[in-house]
């Protein structure tokens, strides 16, 4: 079919928008041009030019005056709704201010939390094929003991693809460690990791130099970050195939450069070194009974993960000769996308982790918003008395109930919209401090399209939440009743609902306050509890260079420095000892079990330097031959079951020795978990580990200088770094500290918004009862009686709220505290203080206005009639 005239759609479009007084003239011009061009240039070109002209004609001078009524048939009504909403807003400035400020704060907090939650949920989701990547989990069964973790044997990554054709790639991944690198004169101590050859094939960390094949095949290969490449070689391209000196003894070749790791990755590393080197440096990893590294696998597309999980479960059986029903390590697969948020094991099963905080904050966000919405519901229904006439008149004129509901929803929408705009402004201000507080790097979301669709949803939700109930109540008034009566009393049902809402608001607020207090108590407990060693004035220096071989000389030199009290060696840092083993034998051991012991090597003077308490026996002594002797902790003693442990035999792997000391339990893990049994043996300083140095309080600076100069003497190749034990300890509980801080703000916000609503209610009640108050005063009532009259109702509600919130908050905080093996008890005064606090704050709010109403001159109120 051939079209005769110009493109019909654009022709119609032109006829629609053009001003009718000259539409036919311009249309004539258009057609004249069109037909001429068809002849001269052909139809296609003419069509194109026609469209161009129509679009160019779409200008103010040519477009007709549009009547807005034409576009939306019921526009007049909506316009009236908007107008009424706006006038109401201006008419009741106090209420509008309370409503809007409450909603603004609630919204801003909710959006902020929403951003945080979203950021948490998006973590690690940037990897391609994330649904095929799995983290290997391991559950250790030993007698009655079950222990779940991500620790797997060091040969697993290499072995898995050989055995299972479904496994496309697999790689071991070590633990974050600091190593020293040097190129020519430049040396740096940088944080990174070791991983198997497939690592970059499993994950999508983008490579900007080098190829994905055989990236980490050779033991001396290293892949470094862009940042590291720049600081050592100038640019990623120049870094390729160059060598770096690793820990003063080995040259590593750069086989690839990856782009700097973004904030959306939970793993942070500046370099990845070949797993082969890890195995060389840690011979114990070659034993299938030892575990430590993480392992990641990528399954082939279409693999059934449930089946695979089943297949991999008893994998270790073929490698561990002692594998039995009672003594086994079962493997499993967890989708990598879930690993970041779900990483806590309970009884060998994954249960929770960061997700608990994500869910908690989600709830907090919703509740804060609801509390703010309640203000609106409350005040609107309370004020309905004043608007009863308006509603009556509207209904008499013929307004349908649905129309009235529409009107009140419009009002809610206008207020919500204003609050949303203000909240976004507030959000921009609060984002920076919030990022600082939570250690995140959340960018301003205002340019994100999905954010706006979220905002649309939130606006609608808030409008519905806050507008629906008042709309239904107000639109239900019967016009005859409303118009006949001089004063229309809002029915008791809505009064009850209002009271219920206040109770609800304050219950939530009090729960927040109790939560805040308990979190603070627990964080303080963490800070102040006796962890079994003295963490103040204790610092660690990583062992390097000649420190290792001539540790004794290094120690002698250190002790000669001013301010240094004691020095010892330790293979791990006392805040975090992670090496556990089942390879322990003793007299009277049940052969069916293989309890896990944590083990570490220490130097002489360990007890003195860390200031741990010796319960029995002695510390390691240079004059005794202690190379095969052990010090154990109290928990270990309980497991061994020796009555008189000193001198009793103990075998760790192939070291047959005796116990020479028992140390009082100290926390070498977080307070979330129970203290594990610990075996300490004498290590004389090896290639790595830590020098633990106890310094005198108040001599920190000079001690540090002295230690630094000794470093230059013993290990000039390695830059001087050190860590303070108390700071490291604090780092372990960063998450709890953030929760403490946030809970403080949110509890404050909740109670503040609730009080705003209360203030509104009191202002309204006082206004309603102006005459009553005045008459009472004339009759001789004093201020105290009037204040009591105005405020007692509200205070009763807050007291009820407190009573309701106590059991609920008790369950919530108990649950949270149970996440810690060592925690504070819930004290009764916590409830008393928060309940009383809420009552006092509410009372202050109420009194603020009630007193004003009570001291007003009765004449002012009465003479107006």
């Amino acid at each position, binding site marked *: 079919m051939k079209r005769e*005239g110009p493109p019909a759609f654009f022709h119609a479009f032109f006829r629609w928008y053009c*001003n009718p007084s*000259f539409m*036919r*003239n*311009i*249309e*004539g*011009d*258009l*057609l*004249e*041009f*069109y*037909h*001429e061009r068809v002849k001269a240039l052909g139809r296609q070109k003419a069509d194109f030019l026609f469209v161009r*002209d129509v*679009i*160019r*004609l*779409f*200008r*103010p*001078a*040519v477009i007709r005056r549009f009547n807005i009524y034409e576009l939306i048939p019921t526009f007049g009504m909506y316009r009236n709704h908007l107008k009424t909403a706006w006038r109401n807003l201006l008419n009741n400035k106090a209420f509008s201010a309370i409503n809007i400020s409450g909603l603004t704060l609630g919204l801003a907090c909710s959006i902020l939390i929403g951003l945080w939650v979203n950021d948490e949920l998006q973590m690690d989701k940037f990897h391609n094929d994330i649904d095929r990547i799995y983290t290997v989990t391991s559950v250790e069964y030993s007698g009655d003991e079950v222990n779940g973790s991500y620790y797997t044997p060091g040969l697993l990554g290499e072995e898995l693809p050989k055995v299972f054709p479904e496994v496309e790639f697999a790689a071991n991944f070590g633990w974050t460690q600091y190593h020293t690198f040097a190129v020519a004169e430049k040396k740096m101590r940088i944080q990174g990791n070791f991983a198997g050859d497939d690592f970059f094939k499993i994950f999508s960390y983008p490579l900007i130099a080098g190829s994905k094949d055989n990236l980490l095949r050779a033991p001396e290969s290293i892949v470094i970050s862009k940042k590291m490449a720049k600081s050592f070689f100038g640019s990623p391209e120049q870094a390729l195939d160059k060598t770096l000196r690793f820990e003063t003894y080995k040259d590593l070749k750069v086989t690839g450069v990856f782009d700097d790791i973004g904030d959306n990755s939970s793993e942070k590393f500046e370099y990845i070194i070949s797993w082969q080197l890890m195995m060389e440096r840690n011979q114990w990893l070659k034993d299938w009974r030892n575990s430590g590294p993480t392992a990641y696998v990528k399954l082939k597309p279409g693999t059934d993960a449930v089946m695979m999980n089943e297949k991999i479960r008893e994998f270790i059986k073929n490698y561990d000769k002692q594998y039995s029903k009672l003594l086994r390590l079962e493997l499993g697969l967890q989708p990598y996308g879930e690993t970041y948020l779900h990483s806590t094991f309970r009884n060998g099963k994954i249960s929770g982790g960061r997700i608990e905080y994500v869910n908690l904050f989600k709830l907090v966000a919703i509740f804060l918003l609801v509390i703010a919405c309640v203000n609106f519901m409350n005040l609107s229904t309370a004020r309905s008395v004043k608007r009863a006439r308006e509603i009556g008149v509207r209904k008499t004129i013929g307004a349908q109930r649905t129309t009235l509901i529409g009107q009140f929803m419009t009002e809610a929408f206008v207020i919500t919209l204003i609050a949303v705009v203000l909240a976004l402004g507030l959000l921009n201000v609060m984002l920076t401090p919030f990022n600082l507080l939570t250690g995140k790097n959340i960018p301003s979301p205002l340019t994100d399209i999905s954010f706006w669709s979220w905002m649309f949803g939130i606006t609608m939700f808030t409008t519905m939440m806050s507008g629906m109930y008042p709309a239904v109540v107000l639109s239900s008034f019967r016009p005859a009743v409303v118009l006949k009566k001089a004063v229309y009393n809002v029915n008791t049902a809505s009064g009850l609902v209002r009271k219920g809402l206040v109770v609800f608001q304050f219950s939530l607020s009090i729960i927040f306050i109790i939560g805040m207090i308990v979190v603070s108590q627990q964080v303080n407990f963490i800070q102040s509890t006796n962890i079994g060693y003295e963490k103040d004035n204790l610092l660690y220096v990583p062992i390097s260079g000649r420190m290792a071989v001539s540790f004794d000389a290094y120690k002698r030199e250190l002790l000669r420095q001013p301010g240094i009290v004691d020095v010892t060696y330790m293979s791990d840092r006392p805040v975090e000892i992670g090496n556990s083993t089942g390879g322990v034998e003793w007299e009277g051991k049940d052969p069916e079990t293989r309890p896990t012991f944590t083990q570490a090597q220490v130097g002489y003077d360990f007890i003195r330097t860390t200031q741990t308490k010796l319960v029995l026996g002695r510390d390691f002594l240079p004059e005794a031959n202690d190379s095969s002797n052990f010090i154990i902790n109290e928990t270990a003693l309980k497991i061994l079951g020796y009555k008189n442990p000193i001198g009793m035999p103990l075998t760790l792997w192939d070291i047959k020795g005796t116990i020479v000391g028992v140390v009082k339990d100290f926390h070498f893990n977080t307070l979330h978990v129970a203290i594990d049994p610990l075996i300490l043996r004498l290590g004389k300083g090896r290639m790595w580990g830590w020098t633990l140095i106890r310094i005198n309080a108040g001599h920190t600076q000079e001690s540090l200088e002295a230690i630094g100069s000794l470093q230059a003497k013993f290990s000039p190749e390695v830059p001087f770094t050190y860590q303070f034990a108390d700071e490291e300890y604090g780092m372990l509980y960063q998450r709890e500290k953030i929760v403490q801080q946030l809970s403080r703000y949110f509890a404050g916000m909740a109670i503040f918004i609730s009080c705003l609503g209360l203030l509104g209610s009191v202002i309204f009640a006082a206004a309603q009862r102006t005459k009553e108050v005045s008459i009472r005063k004339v009759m001789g009532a004093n201020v105290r009686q009037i204040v009591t009259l105005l405020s007692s109702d509200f205070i009763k509600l807050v007291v009820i709220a407190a009573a309701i919130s106590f059991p609920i908050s008790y369950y919530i905080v108990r649950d949270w505290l149970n996440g810690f093996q060592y925690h504070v008890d819930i004290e009764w005064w916590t409830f008393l203080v928060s309940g009383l606090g809420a009552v006092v704050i509410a009372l202050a709010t109420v009194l603020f206005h009630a007193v004003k109403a009570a001291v007003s001159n009765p004449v002012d109120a009465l003479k107006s009639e």
Partner: protein
Amino acid sequence: MKKYQIGEFEEIVMLTMCILGEDSYGVSIQKEIEARLKRDVSMGALHSALVRLEEKGFVKSANGESSEGREGRPRRYYKVTGLGHKAIAHIRKTREDLWRAIPAAAIKAKFFSL
């Protein structure tokens, strides 16, 4: 120029209308400008200019006959009014005054520096 609010393009349109005389309507004006000034004229710009000029009273218009290709739509013929003539004459005078006020040397120097 305070007296007569005319833009550069509006001035060109009016001058073109004077050239065309009786035969000035949308298509002819557009073609004339395009031919003489060798510039692309947007139909939207032209018609906006015509509407504005008519609002200011510099031109008047009347419906005329239709022709082949217009499918019965009438042409709208435009004519410069007396006020319009005054306005373009005023612009011309002010321009000439300005040119005359420039010292000859300045013009020369300008050319040389180019």
